[in-house]
């Protein structure tokens, strides 16, 4: 089933409705009703007939609702620099490949371990050199609670 379009008004013509007119110069015109057919033969222009979709399109009637619906704002994601990390740093960190990151992390971990080992060795050595150092009791090491002194008033 092919839907034709009325040559004058622009309405859809369903089968078995309307008429077809073949003019002397072999042009075929399809009309939805006797109204459109009559207007065509009076040489009326659809652009000037206020009820036709052609007129309404030209005069932009009924278009405002469609336009309003389409104009919803979209939030744009924007990358911003933060105090402590500039935009380049952020982008660099984001674009780092996972294996590089894990390698760097492993490296850092190993470094930290080594550092800690070194410090522990130092501390041991210090303790060995100062034998009195270990004789402090825990309380003494913590320090006594200070007496509340009478201040003014």
């Amino acid at each position: 089933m092919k839907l034709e379009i009325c040559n004058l008004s622009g309405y859809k013509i369903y089968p078995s409705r309307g008429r077809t007119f073949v003019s002397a110069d072999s042009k075929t015109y399809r009309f939805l009703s006797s109204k459109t057919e009559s207007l065509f033969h009076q040489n009326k222009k659809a652009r000037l007939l206020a009820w036709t979709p052609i007129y309404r399109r030209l005069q932009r009637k009924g278009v405002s609702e469609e336009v309003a619906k389409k104009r919803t704002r979209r939030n744009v994601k924007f990358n911003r620099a933060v105090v402590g990390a500039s935009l380049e740093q952020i982008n660099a960190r984001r674009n780092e490949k996972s294996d590089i990151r894990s390698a760097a992390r492993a490296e850092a971990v190993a470094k930290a371990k080594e550092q800690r080992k070194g410090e522990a060795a130092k501390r041991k050595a210090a303790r060995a050199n100062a034998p009195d150092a270990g004789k402090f009791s825990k309380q003494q090491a913590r320090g006594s609670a200070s007496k509340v002194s009478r201040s003014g008033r």
Partner: protein
Amino acid sequence: MIQLKSRLNVIDNSGALVAECIKVLRNARAANIGDEIVVAVKKARPISEKTSSSLSAAKIRKGDVRRAVIVRTRKEIRRPDGRYVRFDDNACVLLNNQQQPLGSRILGLVAAELRFKNWVKIVSLAPRVV
């Protein structure tokens, strides 16, 4: 709906231009597309002595009585899909007594109804069928 005294344009190259219906070869008052009628030629192209020998088609003069088949009508016709079609004028093609077209060419379009009424030769000669 062509009836007695109706004038039709002749759209073949037989030489006739306007024909007037004088008899409808149907048991009805009016004839439609694809019906045969008897016409009297009312207007014909002038035949000069020089062209008469070179013309392959028959020479038709004003006043000749011939048969014709109607190929276009201003009255709308109904198609099987419910559509109605109508043309801008009434037109016919002249025939001889054996129901063959007199002319060798057809100028202009014809209605598709002719195919279903077995005017196959005319449909094949026509430049456009609507």
